[in-house]
């Protein structure tokens, strides 16, 4: 006989399935916005930042554990978030210095304007990290708990910390849009003078679509948040709407990728027929296309499931 406080096996399996699905959805969404750390320089910076952050969190956790033994819980939590803010401040200072160097190099003609724009995006990202860290610190000071992150979280002392966080996070893709538009103009020029293949233009457009989809997704999430605060929708509907928005975002970024993969396959076939490439390249291009089409089918399924749940929610009311 089962212990009264033992979970039902059916429930354990059902929840596992849901967690697995959520992880798949979220991780795919992360990959779709993977433009974030594309360049090598940014990847290295990201890694350094991550290491610093991990060390900081580790240190904060040790300090936190020590203080928790002594007194209340609020103090160590505040201390941890203060350290995170301090780390973000130091990171921003170093990134700003790099931007200033890059601006000087561009004015001297020893660096490309694109590199300066990249440095500006890095600064925007570091600024957003700092503002988020400060926002979390303010929230922790008020509540004494970890900051809330769900769109269906309540206001804290009349203040919408979740909405403010979304606005801050949106500032990063907004800054990246300027860079991608600049890259697109550059690619057009290169194609016009014949030093770049036309497919480069599609790649540049694809990046813009990704950034615009990320911005649109943030805007929709802010609308959902506002609807929740105005009590037009409830918590379960908020969660489903967020899943819908994220699936739509992935769909938007996948459509041009599939188109691009089709064009690449066609171009590869022509080159193979002309004897410029080997047949193995056709197989590679076909595989790329099939993978993307499978991703599209998965997103369509996720979207259909979420929309069906939303419909059931409406009928159930």
């Amino acid at each position: 006989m089962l212990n009264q406080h033992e979970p039902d096996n059916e429930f354990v399996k059902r929840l596992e399935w849901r967690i697995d699905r959520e992880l798949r959805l979220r991780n795919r969404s992360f990959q779709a916005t993977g433009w974030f750390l594309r360049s090598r320089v940014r990847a290295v910076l990201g890694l350094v930042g991550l290491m610093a952050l991990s060390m900081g969190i580790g240190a904060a956790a040790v300090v936190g554990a020590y203080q928790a033994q002594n007194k209340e819980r609020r103090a160590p939590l505040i201390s941890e978030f203060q350290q995170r803010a301090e780390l973000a401040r130091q990171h921003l200072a170093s990134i700003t210095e790099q931007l200033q160097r890059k601006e000087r190099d561009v004015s001297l003609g020893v660096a490309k304007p694109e590199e300066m724009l990249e440095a500006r995006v890095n600064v925007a990202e570091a600024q957003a990290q700092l503002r988020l860290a400060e926002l979390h610190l303010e929230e922790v000071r008020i509540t004494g708990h970890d900051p809330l992150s769900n769109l269906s979280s309540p206001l804290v002392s009349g203040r919408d910390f979740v909405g403010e966080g979304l606005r801050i996070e949106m500032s990063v893709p907004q800054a990246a849009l300027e860079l991608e538009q600049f890259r697109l103009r550059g690619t057009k020029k290169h194609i016009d003078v014949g030093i770049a293949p036309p497919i480069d233009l599609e790649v540049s457009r694809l990046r813009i679509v990704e950034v615009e989809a990320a911005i649109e997704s943030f805007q929709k999430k802010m609308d959902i948040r506002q609807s929740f605060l105005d009590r037009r929708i409830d918590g379960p509907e908020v969660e489903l709407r967020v899943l819908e928005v994220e699936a739509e975002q992935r769909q938007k970024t996948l459509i041009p990728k599939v188109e691009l993969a089709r064009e690449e396959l066609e171009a590869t076939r022509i080159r193979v027929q002309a004897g410029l490439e080997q047949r193995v390249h056709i197989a590679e291009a076909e595989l790329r296309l099939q993978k993307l089409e499978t991703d599209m089918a998965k997103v369509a399924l996720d979207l259909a499931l979420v929309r069906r749940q939303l419909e059931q929610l409406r009928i159930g009311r």
Partner: protein
Amino acid sequence: MMRPLPQEEVIQMYHETIRPLYAYVSQRVGGDVSLAEDLVQETWMRALDDWAKKGIPREPLAWLRRVARNTLVNHFRRVRLQPIAMESLDIGNEFLSTNPDNAAAVGWAMARLRRSYSEILEAFYFEGKTVHEIAADHSLSERAVEGRLRRSRAALKKKLDQIRRKPAASRRRNMEVKDAKPARTR
């Protein structure tokens, strides 16, 4: 910033923590299966949100329990209870009650206590810690813990009194007094 979560690691963690987490919640809702399942699911969804932003905590079960506790408090702060019959109140028994109504009453009252009171009651009754252990955890003397436990119990009783149905005899007396009033004025 969002980061991808390692799928296999999280699922493995889920298997390791689901039973103790469920037991933690179920005990606090008097074995109400659907409520316990809802709250455990909500806790895990919060975990996925939070871990994607801040990374997986060092002690996932402790983290999940803390969030489950907050989720329980939020739940009990939202619910409106009907008056319930708890004729002779024995705080110790009510905590370990297998009757969901009594457990809900305790949860409702606990959610309305100050944090220091609810924490000490939880540690003593749900976690079965001794006064000595609680004193060590909170860097307090055993005497101070005993005093705080006494005050916590009194505060809990006071809250529970707000939702306890009055015994049938006293209700009858009240009704009789009400019925008698017009006769006296006449």
